[in-house]
Each structure stands twice: as structure tokens, then as C-alpha cells.
């Protein structure tokens, strides 16, 4: 498995996927409610993250309604946790 992805790297990934400035993506920001990101774009970003980093979010994580920091925590957890 690749080295852990830092929050700064995760932040940069999301900025690239969503086409917005990384400085707006603080750990506390709620992507849907505060930045006006449409949910389908956010879904596409998460799908891209899954395929590129070989993880799979659980629907129960409700990542879409969380802050970026919480999304990173779940991402990091799945990166560190072996599948199955």
C-alpha cells in the first residue's frame, strides 16, 4: 500500500476534483452546505477517490453530509484497513 495521504494532500485532491481553491477546503468546512458544491459533483469526486486509491466508503459513513476533516478521517481509515 502507498504511504499515508496527509490531510494537505487530501485537500489538494479534492481541490483538483472539484475545481476550487484548496484554501477554501478547511477541515471544518461542510462541502455541501458551505461551499455550494453540488452533490453530484461531490459524488463523482468520491468515486474518483475510491478508484484511484483503492478504497470504498460505506453509505453509512454519510460522507457527503460531513466536513472535509471527517471525510478525510474515513478516507484514512479505509486506506489503513485491509479490505474484507
Amino acid at each position, binding site marked *: 500500500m502507498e504511504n499515508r495521504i496527509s490531510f494537505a494532500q487530501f485537500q489538494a485532491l479534492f481541490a483538483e476534483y472539484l475545481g476550487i481553491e484548496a484554501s477554501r477546503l478547511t477541515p471544518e468546512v461542510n462541502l*455541501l*452546505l458551505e461551499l455550494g458544491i*453540488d*452533490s*453530484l*459533483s461531490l*459524488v*463523482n469526486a*468520491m*468515486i474518483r477517490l*475510491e*478508484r484511484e486509491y483503492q478504497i470504498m*466508503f460505506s*453509505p453509512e459513513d454519510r*460522507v*457527503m*453530509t460531513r466536513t472535509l476533516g471527517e471525510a478525510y478521517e474515513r478516507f484514512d481509515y479505509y486506506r489503513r484497513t485491509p479490505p474484507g
Partner: protein
Amino acid sequence: MLNLSIRALSYYIPKGRMTNGEIVDLFAEKYCRNLPLEDLEQFVYGSRRKLDFLEIKTRSCSVDYREDSSVQMAVKAAQEAIGTAGISAGEIDLLLFVGVCNPFREPSYSIILAHELGMTRGNYYDINDTCNGFLKALELSSLYISTGKYRNILVVTSENPLELLEASGYTGTVNSLEEADYKMNLLFAGAGAAAMLLTADNGRKSIRYYGEQRNHEDWELSLYVSPKIHMPAPRFEGLDFMSWADGRGIAANVIRDMPGFVYEFLEEHELRKDSMDYIFSHQLGRNITNSLLNKLEVKTDKVFPVNTFPENGNMGSANIPAGLAIADEQGLLREGDSILLLGSACGLTYGAAYLIW
């Protein structure tokens, strides 16, 4: 102010369920034949995950169209409502059919339904207000009842989108991943029917107010049309699909504009959002519903206790009446509960109705 009571309310949802995987595989097989293998894999993976993230697990569908066609679903719902009301079909003064997935141009759906129900008198016709049809029918019914022209009005809807797709022979192809985003909106659609018998307000299950807001500027955001029909917009020239939708555009418009409409409706009728017992939003898609309710700052305990979307998908104009009927059936509604119904429909139209259970 409307002059309506709900004398009877019923629903019918067929027993079949298609999982996200099954519907995506079906669409991939029928529509994505031209995609390169790598894109096809991306489509399958991306579509399945999208459905997972948007909180849909299955969508309702017919197991056997000989028993659960659109018309048979409508008949079942209508007969139950008539029976619950304790009247005969001969006592229905007006039958309104309001479904979006209406396969009949001639005769109208309501004529067929009237025949199936054995109506011996009365009037019957269809209205098309897309997913807002059921709420719009409340306003129409009140107008008729208030003038004394009709006493018993039966509003019926039946949505069976997969039946229409099958009957169309799955016309159309997806030629790129970008196209897939616009042509796959029916991945969310589910089957369901509902019927409501309306009479003059007798103080019980009263429907008090209805309001709407329309904007035709964005009519292109969602289409359900005859394939290859000439469209008054160049970008749709040669569209070989009967269904097309810009999900992002719809979501953006609804989330941006609908809250303002809701607040205007509340203010016009001197209602307070926080005094509502329940707020029930049309199940267009959980992402839109959740975002709308968040923007309206609706507290969790105010969210309508029935959520049909995860199991049944978007049942179009049947979402709201079926949800009400299920809540009633499960004893989740108490006499006197105040309920705000919120409808949104492509076109774009926003509708709201306020009722006291």
C-alpha cells in the same frame, strides 16, 4: 383557502425490487453497447457507487405486467380508495389521472381507468403537471367542490417507468460517459400508484392551502419525450432517448430557489415552519431532499416519518400520496397533525400544500 377533506387515501407498490447492481447492469447492457470497455467499467462502477451514495438501495418494479401493469396498479389503488370511502364507482363525480409515466395519448388514461372501475357516470380526464400533478389536482378539486359542481373527486396516479422503458424496446444508445450522466436518470425511478378521494372540507384530514411557483426558463433540465421528436432546442436534435436530465442543474435550481418559494408560501398563509408537525418533501433524490431540508433548517423530528426513497426510488407523482398513505397505515399520523407537503417538478415547478390530518 382550499375546501377539501381526504375521505380516503390508498396506495399500491408492486412487490418487485431491482437492486442498484441489477438496474445498472440492465442499463449497461441495453444502452452502453458503444462504450469502450474501460469506459463501460467506469460507467458500471461509477453508477453503482453513485446510487449507493445517494441513498437508494432498490427501486420498486413489477414482477409480472399481466398483474402489475400501470393500469392494474392504478385500478388497485383506486378500488381500495373507493372501498375505504364506502362508496361505489357510480358515486364518483370526477376522476383525475395525474401520472407522469402516462403511456396513453388516445384515449386518455382516465378514460381507460373509468372503464376498468366501472364508472357509470361522471367526468374523467388527465392532467399533466409532471411530478407536481397530485398536488395540483388538490387545487383543481377544491375549485370544483367549492362551486358545487362535484362532490366526490377521485385523484389517481400510477407510475411505472420501467414498464415504459421495456415497452419502448430500450430505444437509444449512450455514446460517451458524459452522455451517460444525462441519460441515466431513470436509474432512480420506481413504480407506485396512489389514489385519494376528496370531498368538501368536513373538518377532518383537511387540506387548507395550495401554492405553486413556475419557471419555464429551465424547461430543458429534464425531458420525458418521444425519441427523436423535434425539439425547440438545437442541442436535443436527434435525441434518441425518451428520458434525459441534467441532475446537477435540477439540484442547483431546486436548492437555490425552492426555499424562497416555501417561505413565501408560509408567509402568505401565516404559517410558521417551526409549528409544523411534519414537512414532507417530494422524493426527487436524497441528495436534493437532504440539501433542501438542510437549507430550510428543518429539524430532524419534523422530517416526515416515512421515507419511501431507499426501497422504492423516485415514484414521481406517487411519492407524496403513497408516503401519506403508508404513514397513515402505520399509525404514524395523529389527528390534528399539521403537515407541509412540498413538491418539485421538472419544468420547473414548485408546489406546496398544507393539511391538518
